[in-house]
């Protein structure tokens, strides 16, 4: 699913967020990306989404060379992915329902089915009652769950979750992790970035350690 060959990302020609990353993630894998604050986890996910280009090295996602992918292709690729951003990235002027529905509208799902699927996924994260709230009317944890719901709603082939439980209590966090595992069972490739080593180890899945932009152990 994802291959990286000697990937580096340097910001402002001095901040080495990633250095010489070699990595291969197979289709259907569940990978935990673990590292302390500032290790480069988010940066790596950004490169995979094509939101930023690498400074050097090659990245392939689902067969596409992310350095030479066209705008059209990148849009099509992203439609098969699901993202939980660390800062949620909800659209402020849209309600919870609209935020999640947007992902489905982009891929042309019918109005009726959109309603059903959004309701389903909101139910999973226990936010059905917040469907018509705007993001600023939600608690942080609630916003995070909306982000998770949005990532799950299109049954993505690849799911990138950046610290998806940072603002959630243990009970709900467990449920969210369970949702990710379930998705993985339906053959979704999952990358879970977290600073929580404990969480990663209990999952008993493949762990990639990142520190200061380098893969460690």
């Amino acid at each position, binding site marked *: 699913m994802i291959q990286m060959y000697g990937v580096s990302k340097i910001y402002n020609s001095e901040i080495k967020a990633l250095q010489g990353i070699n990595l291969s993630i197979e289709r259907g894998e569940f990978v935990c990306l673990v590292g302390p604050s500032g290790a480069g986890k988010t940066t790596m996910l950004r490169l995979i989404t094509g*939101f930023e280009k690498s400074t050097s090295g090659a990245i392939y996602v689902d067969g596409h060379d992310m350095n030479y992918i066209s705008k059209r292709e990148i*849009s099509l690729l992203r439609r098969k992915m699901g993202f939980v951003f660390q800062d949620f990235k909800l659209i*402020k002027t849209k309600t919870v329902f609209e935020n999640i529905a*947007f*992902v489905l509208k*982009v891929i042309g799902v019918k109005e009726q089915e959109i309603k059903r699927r959004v309701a389903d996924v909101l139910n999973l994260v226990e936010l059905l009652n917040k469907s018509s709230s705007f993001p600023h009317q939600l608690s942080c944890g609630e916003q995070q769950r909306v982000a998770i719901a949005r990532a799950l709603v299109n049954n993505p082939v690849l799911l990138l979750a950046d610290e998806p439980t940072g603002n959630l209590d243990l009970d709900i966090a467990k449920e969210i992790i369970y949702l990710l595992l379930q998705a993985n069972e339906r053959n979704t490739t999952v990358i879970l970035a977290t600073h929580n080593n404990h969480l990663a180890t209990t999952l008993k899945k493949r762990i990639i350690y990142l520190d200061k932009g380098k893969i460690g152990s």
Partner: protein
Amino acid sequence: MSLKYLIKEAMLNLKRGGIASFVTISIITISLFILGLFFILTTNVRAIIEDLSSKVAIVAYLDNGLNKEEIDRLKKEVSKIKEVKHVSYISKEIAMERFKKDLGEGFTDIVETLDTNPLPASIEVKIKGSSFTQEEKERFLHLVAKIKGLVGVKEVDYGKEMIDILTKITEGLSLVIYVIGFLFSIGAVFIVSNTIRLAILSKKEEIEIMRLVGATPGFISTPYLLEGALQGLIGGILSMGLLFIIYKLILNRLIFILTYQFIFLPFTLILGLVIGSIIVGLLGSLLSLHYYLRGG
């Protein structure tokens, strides 16, 4: 992406835009209002000049000793020319009366010492009013020559200086109005498109997010373009309404002072302004969206 979805989105964006939408539309309204006001001004200046032009008359002095039939025949002949609006006969006596009046009362005694009336009878020809462009002027001179060539007409006078001045004013004003009107229009286009651009600037984040979840630039843009067009439309209509109110409340009341009836913009210009506003609204959106969407 159905049209229904698009229009719904555009309306919703507009509504949720709150103050920003309101301010944007206000600025568009006022810009177009000012442009419209300028056009009203120029429309009326043109109307006044045309009014002046319509007062232009050709005086054809007649040969001495024409009889009534000959004069009537001449009048009829002149009336038939299509540029001619009105023809009137001025006898030798009336001409003398006028001459006396022109000279002032102090000199009536001098004139009265004359034993014959040296002034000729004449026909006064009013022409159909129109502004004196260079082209019109030539047509007018052609007309003058034609009347001069008629049997019974000895000499023709038409206020050459007045015609020259009118032509100059008409040509000069047209030029100034075109140049300044052009600059004004450019200015309005600039303000409207940039205001919409300013409004879209605040949507940077939301556009980025949409890109991130796989929406194509086209899919993202269309509702914003429509919103821009809608803002243009609303601004356009409001501005014309405001203009009409100002026209009715203020300009049209100046009539008492100016003894001139202000006219409003012609319908085609109103339509043009509103349609222009829509297009510029759309363009303003397109410009800023292009900026955000050209990246990955």
